[in-house]
Structure formats: C-alpha cells, structure tokens
C-alpha cells in the first residue's frame, strides 16, 4: 500500500496555519495606537506590590474592545502573554506565571494592555506596573465564610486558601456537626499545627484545641464566669490562650446608613492554661471596665486589649469608645501586671478594636470606628498604625470609604491581610498589602482564578489569619472529637 504522507498531513498543516493566523489576529502588530491612558482593570492591580509566591493576578479589562491582549514583562526580558475575547477576562497559566515571577523577584513587572476595536485596530494603554517584593507571604490564609447577615445561620465553614495557587479547602464545615455555629479560629503565631476554634450550640458545642494532630474538645465556661470565652488570643510560645468573655447584644438600625450594631453589656479578660485546664482572671478590672479583643505581643510578654468603662443599665451606645491598653504577663507565675495605656482612642473621639502587633514588636495596627466594639458594620471603620517605639500614630494606606476591619500580620511582618467592604459596602473581601519601613503599600484583592468571582459571591470572608502551612487536621477529625464529652475547665483563683 502506497501511503501519500503529504496528502495526509495537508489538513493538519492547514489547521496549524489557521491557528497561527487567528493567533496573529488576536495580537497587536506594529501599527498600534497609543491611548496614553491607564487601562481600567478589575481587580485593580496597578501600582501594587505582590509577594513572589502569589497566585496569578488575573483580571478583567473594563475598556471597550472586541479582543484584548496582555503582555507582562519583567526586567530580565521574560514575557508572559494572555489574550481575551469580548469577555475581556485575562487569565494566566499557573506554571508559566510561577516561572515568570521567579525571574522577577525584587523588580518591577509591567503589564502592557492592548484592546482591539471593531475596525480591527489595536490600541495600547499605559503599562500597569506591579512590584514583586523579595519577601514571601505565608502560603495559607484561614478564614470563615458566612453570609453577612444578622442572627441566623445555616451553612458556615472555616476554610484555608493557598495564596500560591487557587486551592481552597475546608478546615471545618458545620453541616458535619448539625449546623452548629463555628467561629473564632485562632492560631499560635501562624502555626497550622496549633490552633483553636469555637463551636457554638448543640451537642458539638465547645472549644476545640488542635495540637499537632490531636483535637481536644473543652468547655471553658466555668461558674465563675458571667459569659463564655469568646474572642481568643493564642499565646505565641506557651500553652495559654487569653480570651475576652463577653455578654454580647445585637440591635438593628432603622436608618439605611447602618444595619447592625453588636455591642457588649459586660466583658472581661480571662486566661486559659491549656496544660492545667484552668481558667483564670487576667486581673481585677472586671466590673470597672469592659475589656475585649485580647492580642499578644510577639514575645508573649504583653497582652494588648481594648478597654472602656463598664456601662450602666442606661447608656447611649454612641458614647462608648474603647482605648487600647496592655498588661505585662509573667508566664511562669501566670501573673499579669497593671493596665498600661497604649492608645487613647476616645480622646480622638474614636473607638479602637483588634490591636495587632507586628512580629518585630514595633508596630501596632488596629481598627478605629466612631463608637462601639463591632466595627465591621461601621462604614467609617479604618485601619490605623502606631509606631510603638516613637508613639507616632498614622492612618494606613489600606483604607477606603467603606469598612476596613479585621487584620492579621504575616509571620515575617511583611504582609497584612485585612477585611474590607469596599467592593459593595456589604460583603467582606480579603485584601493584601505589603508592609515595609513602617508603610503599607497599595492593597490588592486576594486573587481568584475567575476575576469575576467576587461579583457572584454573596458570602463574606471573616477573621482572616495568615498560616505558615496547610492545616492538616480536617473536618472529619474535628467531627470525631465533637462526639466526645467536652473536657470541663476549672477556675483557678
């Protein structure tokens, strides 16, 4: 049999020629018109600083055009390209992106964006510049996903997202434990092997401590406490967790400027000694003051927290403003020192929450709102910075006209993840920002494979925490321990 190879190959060659020609049509040639303007893209990536281990920064081009082309260049001359049709969605392959970013560490990369109009003419926009920092980001962020609702819940989960790609997995899914509320996950430092979380209500109710693969269910509410252990702060080095114990009230606003107010009628700080399974007071300020949102200094020698005078039966919520204090802590004796003022927010007519000390111990970032203790529902809530060495106070570059609230440092202190409602005023999204020389860079949205992901998502991110690796304990292990009887803590005087 005489096979005519060339005849057989003809359609194949024709196919590749066609693909090549179509590809050429999708790319700008030499006759490109310069627009002289920056392209509008979402999420906004122009001028941001990203870590060298970040997932591809995909985006949508919000400019007119029938086709789009993007060329990313680094200073080594490496190129990465992507094209899009009229959906204007630019996506980069993860492997190519990683290789490209590896060659761009510590330099600036430029996104050249082109759009083709209906006449087939290509227009070039001013390049978008992105700096690739040398410092990597902790590879995981743990958070809770929930509806930004009021009181009810059905589906809640605590998840972890790998920021180096787009993988997301569940640490705990509440449908496995009769839809009980899961909340307040907190890590020792940023260690994925040591963390805790609360499960509220039902048979599974309790505080779960994870210690290198072992899960212990505890009941931290003792008779001496007026409320359960609520907001946690895992000691960075020792087997302690500080909590605030809060009697929480929720009210709903009538005016369209706000929806919900959550506040305390009573709150105080307590300490849990994991090893001895004992709860104790963190001082004798209870009754005089309301204390909440504990947070350890990185060396574990100070407990920072928010404090205001104890309210009476009659009070105006708009008069309640919290200041930031700290107490010295001797872990060997389990003793706290007296309260020392750190930041007098009320003197500025503001209320402080979520003090978080940078890993080098020098800076403190916290949230300031007009009043109260639950800033997520306050549009005016913003993030501020205090240099603990100089006492200098400044607004961060992280803020928007909408809420900025919960925040967490990366283990190397070079990155911050924070929650913001800037996209639509209701749903909370995670933003990341580079921190260097006491300044935050322009924040960028946690990247997603589909740049339109957040437009469709109706749930909110809650309590984002950087983690240095993947949490290996999963829902099944936690569910197994949920069936066990909770280990009841005792009160130590």
């Amino acid at each position, binding site marked *: 049999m005489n096979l005519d190879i060339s005849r057989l190959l003809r359609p194949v060659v024709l196919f590749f020629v066609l693909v090549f020609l179509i590809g050429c049509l999708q790319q700008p040639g030499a006759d490109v018109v310069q627009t002289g303007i920056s392209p509008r893209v979402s999420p906004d990536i122009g001028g941001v600083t990203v870590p060298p281990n970040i997932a591809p920064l995909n985006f949508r081009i919000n400019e007119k055009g029938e086709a789009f082309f993007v060329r990313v260049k680094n200073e080594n001359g490496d190129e990465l390209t992507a094209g899009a049709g009229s959906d204007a969605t630019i996506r980069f392959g993860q492997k190519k992106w990683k290789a490209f970013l590896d060659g761009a560490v510590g330099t600036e990369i430029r996104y050249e964006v082109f759009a083709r109009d209906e006449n087939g003419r290509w227009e070039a926009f001013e390049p978008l510049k992105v700096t690739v920092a040398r410092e990597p980001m902790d590879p995981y962020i743990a958070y809770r996903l929930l509806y930004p609702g009021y009181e009810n819940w059905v589906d809640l989960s605590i998840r972890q997202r790998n920021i180096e790609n787009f993988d997301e997995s569940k640490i705990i899914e509440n449908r496995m434990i009769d839809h009980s509320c899961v909340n307040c996950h907190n890590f020792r430092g940023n260690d994925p092997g040591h963390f805790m979380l609360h499960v509220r209500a039902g048979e599974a109710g309790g505080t779960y401590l994870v210690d290198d693969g072992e899960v212990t269910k505890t009941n931290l509410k003792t008779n001496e406490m007026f409320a359960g252990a609520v907001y946690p702060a895992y000691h960075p080095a020792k087997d302690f967790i500080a909590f605030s114990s809060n009697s929480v009230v929720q009210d709903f*606003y009538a005016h369209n400027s706000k929806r919900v107010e959550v506040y305390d009628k009573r709150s105080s700080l307590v300490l849990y000694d994991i090893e001895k399974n004992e709860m104790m007071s963190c001082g004798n300020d209870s009754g005089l003051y309301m204390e909440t949102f504990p947070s350890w200094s990185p060396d574990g020698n100070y407990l920072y927290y928010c404090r205001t005078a104890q309210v009476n039966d009659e009070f105006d919520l708009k008069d309640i403003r919290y200041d930031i204090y700290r107490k010295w802590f001797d872990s060997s004796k389990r003793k706290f020192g007296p309260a020392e003022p750190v930041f007098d927010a009320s003197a500025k007519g503001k209320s402080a929450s979520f003090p978080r000390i940078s890993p080098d111990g020098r800076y403190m970032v916290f949230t300031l709102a007009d009043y109260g203790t639950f800033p997520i529902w306050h549009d005016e809530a913003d993030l501020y910075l205090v240099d603990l060495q100089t006492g200098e106070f400044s607004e961060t570059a992280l803020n928007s006209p909408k809420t900025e609230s919960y925040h967490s440092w990366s283990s190397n202190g070079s990155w911050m993840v924070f929650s913001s409602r800037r996209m639509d005023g209701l749903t909370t999204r995670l933003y990341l920002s580079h921190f260097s020389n006491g300044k935050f860079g322009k924040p960028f949205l946690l990247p997603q494979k589909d740049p339109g992901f957040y437009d469709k998502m109706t749930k909110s991110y809650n309590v984002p925490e950087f983690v240095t690796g993947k949490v290996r304990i999963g829902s099944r292990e936690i569910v197994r321990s949920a069936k066990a009887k909770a280990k009841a803590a005792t009160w130590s005087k």
Partner: protein
Amino acid sequence: MGKKKEKSDKKRIDIRQGTAFVSLVLVFFTGSFVCFLVPGNAVFFYQEKQSLFLFSVEYFREFLETPGGLLEYFSRFLRQFYFYPAAGAFIISGYLTLLVVVLKTIVKRLGSNGPRMLIPVFVPSLVMLYLHSDLGFMLRHSIGFLIVAGVFAVLLKLRTQKAALVGPVLFPVFYYLLGGFAWILFFMLILYFLKVLRGKKKAYVALAMVIMALLSYVAFSMLFFLQPVNKILFHPLPVAEGEVFRPALVFISLFVAFLPLIARLSWFSNEKVSTVMPAGVVVFLFVVTGFALRAGYDAGTRRFLRLEKMVFEQNWDAVIETFENNDFGDKISEHYYFLALSEKGWLCDRMFRGNPQFGAGSLIIPWEYRADVINRGGYFYYAIGLMNEAHRWAYESMVTQGYQPQNLKMIVKTNLVNGHYKVAGKYVSILKRTLFYKKWASRYEAMCNDPGLIRDDPELSEKIGLLPETDFFINVEQPAANLAYLLQANAKNRKAFEYGLAWALLSKNVEAISGELPLFKEMGYTKLPRHIEEAALVINSIQRNELGETEGYTISPETISAYEAYATEYRKFRGSPRLQTVMRNRASDTFWYYMHFN
C-alpha cells in the same frame, strides 16, 4: 392446530390486556392531570417558591457534593416549571404515568405478563399521587423511583450474565447518581440475581453487590464527600429527616424492591385469567385514591396559598376582594389583608369590611425563628418604609432557606430603596440566571445601573419617601413601637401613621386616636379616613362635643347618618339576643360594630 389456537388465544389476550393497560394509563394520566391542575394547583405555587433553579456552573457544582445530588438537581430543574401550574400538573402526572409504564415493562421482561400484574404496577404511582398532593412532598422525594425502575428495566434487557457483571460494577455510579434510591435498586438486583442465577453464581454476584455497596459507602463517606452519614446514605430520600411521608415511602421502596418477587408469584403471573377483574381492581384503586385525595384536601390551606400568590404578585385589589368575600380565619391572611389595604392607602377606610378577628395581633407578625414567619412578616416593614427591617427579614429568610424568588426580590428592592445599588445588582444577577424571573431581574438591573430610574418607579419612589430620616434601633420584642419611632423619624410617613391608627382601632383605644387627630392636618389629609370618622364620632359622643366637627375636619354626612342609624338600632335591640345579628347585618363593616361585638 391446537398450538395455533393457543397462539391466537394468547394474542387475543395480549391485545385485550394491552388495550386495558393503555386505557387505564390514559385514565390515570388524565385524572392525575385534572386533579393537580384544578383543585390541587396550589401545591405548585408553594413548591416553586421554595427554591430557585439557577443556570450556572457554581449552582450545578453544589449538587455534585453528595450522592443523589444530581437527582436533586434534576428534580429542581423540573420543579422550576411549576411556575405554570399546567406544566407542574403535566410533570407530576407524566412522571407517575411513566413509572407505571416502566414497571409494566419490568414485569413483562421478568416474564410475568398476567393480567393481574396490572394491579401492582399502578400501586406505587397511586400512593405517590396522593403524597404529591401534600405541600411538603417534593419531586426529589420520589423521582428516584422512576430512575431506579428505568435502570432495572435496562439491566433486564441485557443478558443475565452481562447484567450480573454490570450491576455490581456500576453500582457506585448508580449510588452517586441516585443517592438513597440506589438501595432500592440494590435490593431489586440482589433479589433478581438470586432468582435467575444458578449455583454458586448466585452467591458470587450477591457478594459482589454487597462488597461494591460497602466500598461505595466507605469511599463516599471517608474520601469523596464531606457530608453527614445520614445524607451519604439516604439523600434525597426524606427517610433520615423524620418526615411524615416516611411510612409511605418505606412502603413504596419495599414494594418496588420486591417487585421482581411479586412478579414471580403465580397468582400474578397467571396469564389464563380475565383482564376484567384486575382492570376493575385498578379502577377501584383509582376511586379509593380519589376519595383519599378528597379527604385529605385542605381547602383552607389552598385558599390561603391562593391569597398569598396574590400578595406575591402585589395584586392588592384581588387580595382585598378575596379576603372580604371568604372566611379565612387565620392570622396571616388577615395580616395580608391589612397589608393590601395599606398598599392601596385604604387601611383606615376599609379595614373593618374584612371582619377582623384577631384584634391588633394580625396587624404585625412578631419576629420568630420559623420559616413560615420569617418568609411572611417582612412585607409589613416594606409597606411602611422601614427598609432595613424588611431587608433583615428577607435576608434571614435567604440565609436559613436559601435563594427563593420572594426573598431575593425583597433583597433587591430594599437595597435599591436604601441606595445600595451594588448589593442589589448582585442579587439581580442571581435572579437573571433563572428561567422565570429573568424578566423581572432585567427591569431592576436597569435601576442598579442607572439609579435615576428608581425615582421613575412608582413603587420604589413611594418607599423612598417613607424612609426614616433619623436613626433608631428596631424594637424586635414590641414591633408596634416601631410605628411611633418611624413617625418621629419621618413625620410625613402616612403608612406608619395609618398603621398606628389601625393598631389603636383594633385595640379599641379611642383615646389614642383622639390624641392623633391633630396630626391629620400636619400630614396633609384633606378628609379623615372613614374609620377615623367613625372613631371621632364615638369620641365626640363621649366628650359630648358637636358630632360633625373634629380637629378642623367636617365628618361626612354619610358617616353621621350611619352613626345615628346605628345608635338608634343599637338602643332598640339592646338586651335582645338578636342584637348582634341585627347590628352585623346593618354595620358589620364599621368600627362601631367591631368595638361592640368583637
């Protein structure tokens, strides 16, 4: 010669049986279709509103996370067509009829073609026909029976050896697709193989089935799906959820599972019997089912759902007319009636025409963590312009019960009125991914993109005018208190004002009404509403004022003459057992009658 006769006899029997079967099937389909279309169509309105089917990859993905999820996805796909009751009646009737046909095919393939087999093949569909008349019985609870039967029928078409291989090997796939229904298939196959296979093959195949079932369960629960055990085992059957249909579903499951055995019973498989008796039994079962449906028919609930449909369609005239011409006797219907009157601006003009029976208790539904409350109580807040609270009810409904047309529509509207256009747009985009709410969503999408259009919308622009201008905390415990707060926060809010008056009227608190009378001038009323005139006459009468004047308003001569006539009649029959009847005939739609007799 004898063989030929036998063959022709068999053919004649087959034709006779075939004709009987087709006739019965047609009767069954028609009867079922008419039942669901005419008296039973409220079930479609209710069930269609329980969820939204979205045409999106994300929505589809949710159903991949559990065995039986795809079956639920399919049933939800069909359920969206309940939007049109005729489509709903056709789907339910069609699927039940198809089940009869498939079961008949199965018994035929099992070699049991006796006329008496007509009886068992109708039984599951008749039971399910009854179950489907219940509001809570969803397509997902039953459609698996059809697919199980279909799969079994297909396996019967294969050669026995091949089926014995395919059954166990494909069981994990069946389990994933059918969820809890797969266990019915499991028993059907085991029973079938035990019957048709010989020797050790029986044990091998049965063992293979058991092993595959166990492996599937272990793999699904330990590796593939993060779901509670009950869901892994039974979803979407309601067996694990403790629902009221459990006994009936267990019966159908066992019935279908044992059908291969039933088909083998000689009483059923005997082909040498007349078709008349079995067909008669089936007709008798139709009649019994009909009586059962009639006995279980809850006319009150159906009537209520028809009223609720009108509320959801904002067909206020129809709500008012329907309520006034029927005896509803429940709080929510009365609540809807007041709502409709308020939306039409007639609350204090007409509320006693509906003969209210629950005092002020039906005016506002207090907050409760119950789906039937959360889904219904928020419309009042929307009516009076307390958008944040209306939004809260709708949002809580969405959180606890998932996306439903009504909660999403309310979320869209309240966000638009409150000026949260991006949030509204997000929920509009969800509704745009549906088949039957796309058009509604497109209208509101235009407003999200161009908020100037909101002012052109009569409904939304009216609500903007009712919004509180200053802030206060909602009183959840005593919701009526919010009316006064709202009025303080927006002194022009007539809806809140009239609801407050209605509360006073229903509470027979004429002093409160007296205190509010000076506000009518401030609110710009040119004339007092009829029931306020009636109350004013009572006040004037008590205070011995001139009847026809109050706070600068002249009470209409019709109201005065009606009052005088009422008073005359009342005096005349006072002490008589006929008093209430006489007054009801004369003035049941007045505040006076309500005050005296309710």
